[in-house]
């Protein structure tokens, strides 16, 4: 009994130290720098086959013809736009409660990437809507709530830039990110709660997807590729921000003079 409990404590302690190390900007900068090239490698290995498969190998849809090929970029970026907001909110919560500077910085670096994916989602969805529905834009529940997501991202970015003191700015904007998560279930369930022009969910993690496997595989490749893109991009942005924040610290002095 005593042995197992000490084992457990040491395991927990090791986890905790590992986690705490990521809270150190110098450690974060070094390890993330080594991680980024691998993330980019993975991104290209998934995105290039995914794009070729989706655009030129997957069969046309029985009803839409070829315009459905837009989903290979629309669906991955739509999911990513929501996932990034959730990640940003969790990091902001960690920042608010534990005051870990790396978490605050990571949260703030999520916002521009998330906003970019939201713009891509809205633009590609609009371009898909014209040949499919016969309209570029309608104020239905799904489209309106995704547009609200864009405004939330812009609000987080704006609030962060409006406050001069960087840590206070990150916490204030983090609070907005935390509050903004209530929009995520609205986006997801809008097509079930209300009647919408946008169709229901095609791909579900649990249960059967109503998309043919010949179209699902390139979609999944793109979904994973977009995640790696986000990872590489987030780490690059966070490294920059940490370097500027710590410009007078010794680790930056050593880092910069060695390059």
């Amino acid at each position: 009994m005593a042995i197992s409990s000490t084992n457990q404590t040491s395991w927990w302690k090791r986890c905790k130290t590992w986690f705490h190390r990521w809270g150190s900007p110098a450690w974060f900068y070094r390890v993330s720098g080594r991680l980024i090239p691998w993330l980019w490698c993975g991104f290209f290995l998934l995105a290039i086959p995914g794009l070729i498969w989706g655009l030129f190998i997957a069969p046309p849809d029985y009803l839409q013809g070829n315009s459905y090929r837009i989903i290979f970029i629309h669906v991955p970026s739509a999911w990513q736009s929501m996932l990034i907001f959730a990640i940003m909110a969790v990091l902001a919560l960690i920042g608010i409660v534990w005051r870990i500077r790396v978490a605050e910085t990571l949260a703030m670096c999520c916002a521009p990437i998330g906003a970019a994916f939201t713009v891509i989602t809205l633009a590609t969805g609009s371009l898909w809507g014209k040949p499919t529905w016969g309209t570029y834009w309608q104020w239905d529940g799904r489209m309106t709530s995704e547009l609200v997501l864009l405004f939330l991202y812009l609000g987080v970015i704006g609030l962060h830039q409006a406050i001069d003191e960087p840590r206070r700015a990150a916490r204030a904007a983090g609070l907005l990110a935390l509050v903004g998560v209530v929009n995520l279930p609205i986006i997801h369930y809008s097509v079930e709660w209300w009647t919408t022009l946008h169709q229901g969910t095609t791909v579900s993690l649990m249960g059967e997807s109503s998309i043919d496997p010949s179209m699902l595989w390139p979609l999944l490749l793109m979904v994973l590729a977009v995640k790696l893109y986000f990872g590489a991009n987030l780490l690059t942005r966070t490294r920059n921000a940490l370097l500027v924040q710590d410009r007078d610290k010794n680790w930056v002095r050593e880092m910069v003079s060695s390059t």
Partner: protein
Amino acid sequence: MTPTRKRRLSIALFILLGMGAATSLLLYALGDNLLYFQSPSDVLSNDIQTGQRFRLGGMVQPGSVQRDPDTLAVSFVVTDYQQSITVNYQGILPDLFREGQGVITNGALTSDGEFAAREVLAKHDEKYMPPEITDALERANPTGTAGGQR
């Protein structure tokens, strides 16, 4: 966890909870106003006045589409398999307008109980299939339209 962190965490969760409750109440209060379209059953049970603009959505009843050979006028029946309403429209229909497929029309009821549409949008379902598979499905089940209904 230190008491300060506990306090911060509970404040953050309290704000989130409050925001969630406020939003759910707001959405609940807005209720049917958030519906993008109404089904024929909704329309017939809600006693909507003639001339009032709203969106009517449903399936285009197979065999109901009638086109005027000289003008762009077209009429079809929108159904939710319980109630149906005849829609009259003058203009170009979207490419994906098909019998047995979803459609959303924007317009108003006329005095004869039909719907005068100013705009017709095709509603797409959540199915994505290659043509060969639908052909095979149709061969196996010639009466139903494959993948046509949600």
